[in-house]
């Protein structure tokens, strides 16, 4: 924790910007814009969670949305009023149909559940590397999705669970996002984070230096799962209704595009990517419905948002493989460049 002070100092800039953005939107914006901003902060938390694992270990994970789903479903099932549960999921196992907790307690239980699941699955993930690790995380996502859709007594399957008390707001989401930024930066700058990043660049050299890669991956996996779980709590407590399809491949690819575009190896890159994709996605969604732009009536084009996401991923991979920021953070951008070879053009 030698870098604690420095890390807190350099995280101040993005944190203050995010808080200012939230305050501006909360004060001046229309309700639908507040909803968009909420989605932005939620996706930011999700992306930061993914960044902690993928960005530091270099292993692509498709499985994290499963943790988000677990947290969302846990909060939903624990907070929905008993009367409503009697009609939706009367046969819930473990007597859950008769349980109604406050959102805070429910969120804590959700975190505990994610912690246990991540800790257990982490033993297996940390044993694997390369394609085997990636297919394993993919298997985790499929397993989670199948459980969400097939355990009808508990989750209502494909139909959504509704009636979750709406207790979250933009300010809370922004606060969670800021905490996530700090946690992600703390991990990245810590000795553990540095060793893990080293192992992703040269496994052999890192191992020769005595880096315990498996253990580091396990730690990163658990931390990132908890952050992703926080996104799940934000999801359930704002929307009030959840369904299994929010925790599957389409959402995974959305977040993937975000961290790829910005540069998953830096926290700042992740923030930038989430911002860029959120804005771009909204523009694509507007164009999709066939608006009138400058007097020209555009045709409806469903599929444009998806096309946009795919194009962003491919374009980034072809022209700027490490994302916009690569592995540099905001503060480096403002520092005077000493040598152009190590500077902005990563």
């Amino acid at each position, binding site marked *: 924790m030698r870098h604690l002070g420095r890390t807190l100092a350099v995280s101040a800039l993005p944190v203050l910007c995010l808080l200012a953005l939230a305050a501006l939107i909360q004060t001046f914006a229309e309700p639908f814009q507040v909803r968009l901003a909420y989605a932005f902060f939620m996706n930011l938390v999700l992306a930061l969670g993914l960044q902690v694992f993928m960005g530091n270990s*270099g292993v*692509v994970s498709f499985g994290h949305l499963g943790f988000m789903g677990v947290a969302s479903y846990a909060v939903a099932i624990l907070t929905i009023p008993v009367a409503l549960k009697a009609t939706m999921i009367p046969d819930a196992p473990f007597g859950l149909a008769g349980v109604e907790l406050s959102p805070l307690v429910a969120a804590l239980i959700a975190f505990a559940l994610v912690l246990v699941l991540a800790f257990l699955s982490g033993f*297996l993930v940390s*044993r*694997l*590397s*390369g*394609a*085997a690790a*990636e*297919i*394993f995380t*993919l*298997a*985790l996502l*499929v*397993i989670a999705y*199948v*459980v969400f*859709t*097939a355990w009808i007594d508990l989750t209502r399957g494909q139909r959504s669970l509704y009636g979750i008390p709406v207790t979250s707001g933009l300010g809370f989401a922004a606060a969670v996002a800021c905490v996530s930024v700090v946690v992600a930066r703390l991990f990245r700058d810590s000795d553990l984070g540095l060793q893990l990043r080293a192992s992703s660049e040269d*496994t*052999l050299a890192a*191992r020769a230096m005595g880096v315990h890669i498996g253990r580091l991956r396990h730690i990163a996996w658990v931390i990132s799962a908890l952050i992703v779980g926080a996104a799940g709590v934000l999801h359930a407590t704002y929307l009030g209704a959840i369904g299994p399809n929010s925790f599957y*491949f389409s959402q995974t*690819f959305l977040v*993937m*595009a975000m961290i*790829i575009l910005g540069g998953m190896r830096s926290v700042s890159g992740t923030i930038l990517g989430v911002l860029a994709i959120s804005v771009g996605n909204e523009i694509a969604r507007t164009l999709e419905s066939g608006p009138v732009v400058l007097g020209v009536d555009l045709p409806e*084009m*469903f*599929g*444009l948002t*998806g*096309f946009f*996401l*795919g*194009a*962003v*991923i*491919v374009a980034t*991979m*072809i022209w700027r*493989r490490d994302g916009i920021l690569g592995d540099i953070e905001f503060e480096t951008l403002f520092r005077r460049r000493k040598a152009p070879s190590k500077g902005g053009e990563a």
Partner: protein
Amino acid sequence: MTEYILQQMVNALAVGSEYALLALGLAIVYSIVNLVNFAHGELITVSGYALFFSAAVWVQNPWLLIALAVLCSTLAAAALERVAFRSIRNASLNTGMLTAFGVSIIIQNVFVIFVATRPRAVQTPAFLAEIVTIGGLRFPVLQVVETLTTAVAILALVVLLRSTTIGLAMRAAARDFTTVRLMGVRANRVIQVAFLISGLLAGIAAVFIFSRRGAVDPFMGFVPVLKAFVACVIGGLGSLPGAVLGGLLLGMFEVFLQVVLPADAAAYRDAIAFSVVGLVLVLYPQGLLGKRVELGDKEA
């Protein structure tokens, strides 16, 4: 009872063959360019729309339809290589895989934009839907033909790899591409042929997939390629015999679960299958037939 078991075994072989064909296509590309081509599934979709559109412009002959479908997916595979994958050729595994995901999302949404999200009915030759009687037992023609076709395709591939110059170049490229190029073999040619073969195999698999499903929609390629990828990793990524073995095992295991699981557990079939896949990976990280590579080995 024996009849039922035999029928289910043929069924298992047929499903396994479908996965094996797709997995083989993934493996042959991976073995040469280290690319996990997730856009492979979209080749099936391309075949499907080829069947749909050529039937719409009154191509009546079923054989001609099949040939067109297979041709389209083969050409589409080569086109993908040229347009998207050539520019990331020497990149890391992750870059390749994410690019392929991106390409797959683009193709899916191009179909959404220009065709529609709704499934479209696709015609395949009528004889595939019939029942054949072998030794007093009744089997669907589709399953028998699928298994036999896969066997023939694998044999043809073995012959190609073993007794032609390009096959030799491909086998060598899988081990050491640089040396192959030093021998004067054109890299682009070897890679193009690998993609053509993968497209051809996907096209063949597509014909059977559509005989079973009867309809095509933009997102249908994802599940088959997911299964094929799993099959590849189980068998050992990049190993061609591994891909066939993995495909057969996965298909048979799925049919086995379908037969054995009680009705109320049937919904969990994929979860059980993927749990077993995860377990296999933890026990055999290199896959069943993959080479065991130590960190720092020259030939990785």
